[in-house]
């Protein structure tokens, strides 16, 4: 994104709209901090500038285009065919049965809420979970960016790209899940430059209950009282 200085009237109305706070004033010019901007497109889409001074370049070059792929939900990622930055995960689990009883799905989303993340943090998390012996979800847009599938290391040229968020997804055996959570949380708290939300995906029992929730609480976790729940409509 950039601001066309020939059109900008310096009203500053656009400044608060940017989720990254990347719009600023420099020597009497309103401009966009190229480093802080994640190419989410909100400033332009919001329609805040009556002069049309907020513009996008014709084609964002690689590797900067990674920012748009992981920050603008209207960009569909080529490797998944899915808009946004994650997979369909549990949303269609009543069709795919990807998450089975006895297994726990994990989602670690870096940068959200509202802080953003450099891909060097994503690289750290990928290496960590790979070292803990997990297999990553294959249809996640992060996966094509991995240079070394053994270690989870990302391509070196993208490490300093910043995105609104990127998600690491994987599944592990339920028996390993609680200790895994403890180790993962310690790692995230000690190693990240940004924030991360961690969530688990759990298949219900025959009665539609989630006994794993109670195990989480007994283990000292504080799962949110709200959740995203697939209600099995596709099976009707």
């Amino acid at each position, binding site marked *: 994104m950039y601001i066309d200085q020939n059109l900008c009237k310096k009203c500053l109305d656009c400044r608060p709209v940017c989720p990254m706070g990347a719009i600023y004033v420099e020597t009497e010019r309103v401009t966009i901090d190229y480093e802080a901007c994640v190419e989410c497109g909100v400033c332009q889409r919001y329609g805040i500038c009556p002069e049309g001074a907020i513009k996008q370049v014709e084609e964002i070059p690689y590797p900067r285009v990674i920012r748009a792929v992981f920050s603008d939900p209207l960009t569909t990622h080529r490797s*998944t065919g899915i808009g946004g930055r994650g997979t369909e995960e549990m949303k269609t689990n009543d069709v795919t049965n990807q998450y089975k009883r006895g297994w726990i799905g994990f989602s670690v989303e870096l940068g959200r809420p509202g802080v953003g993340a450099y891909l060097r943090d994503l690289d750290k998390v990928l290496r960590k979970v790979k070292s803990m012996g997990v297999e990553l979800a294959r249809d996640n847009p992060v996966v094509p960016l991995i240079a070394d599938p053994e270690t989870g290391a990302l391509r070196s040229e993208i490490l300093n790209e910043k995105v609104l968020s990127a998600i690491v997804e994987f599944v592990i055996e339920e028996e390993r899940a609680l200790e895994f959570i403890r180790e993962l949380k310690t790692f995230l708290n000690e190693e990240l430059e940004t924030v991360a939300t961690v969530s688990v995906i759990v298949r219900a029992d025959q009665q539609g209950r989630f006994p794993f929730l109670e195990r989480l609480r007994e283990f000292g976790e504080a799962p949110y009282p709200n959740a995203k729940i697939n209600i099995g409509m596709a099976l009707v």
Partner: protein
Amino acid sequence: MTHTLNRRGLSEDRSGQEIIVLCMVHHKEKEQKQKAMEEAACTVLRHNPDNVIGLPMGMKEKDIPALSARAGIVTAVFNDPQDVLSLVKELKAKKLGISVVLSGLFGDVRKICARSGLTEHTANISLGIFGRTERLPEEPILEITTQCGHALVSPHLVKHIVRQILKGKMTPEEGARKLVKPCVCGIVNPQRTERILERLAKKKG
């Protein structure tokens, strides 16, 4: 709507709150289930949603079923669980072969499932936020910004709007309308956002 589970500020002490509804087809079935998605979107629109995918970008309601058919998805937020119950019952009766996800309090979703003869299948549950949490904005601002799963609602915009409210240049209702706009999925809740803005303005005033 992937991260609606991370919404802050909801509590089982206040049941009967907002529920986000998502209807979706698996991406490999998008082509063959276009009619089903169109029907799902029409059904969602009939049950009084408070915000719907596409509306914040200026789309008209009449164009949303076609969008849903193409995209294989429809999302909406509701403030009355009774509306969600009647919607779920109607979707069930239509047997569209699509997935439906409800995002809300466990207790509220349980009641809807019980009353519609459905059973919870899979849940996505947040364990919280970790890492450099000192970089997060204050809690009431998070209650607004986390409503957009793609993190497109700027905390700076929330603060700006609160300042406008305090100056008497904007009402909380007008402010909520401005905060709904960046969220392309249409799941920021205008009513709830208005209440939080009132609370923030009162606190800062």
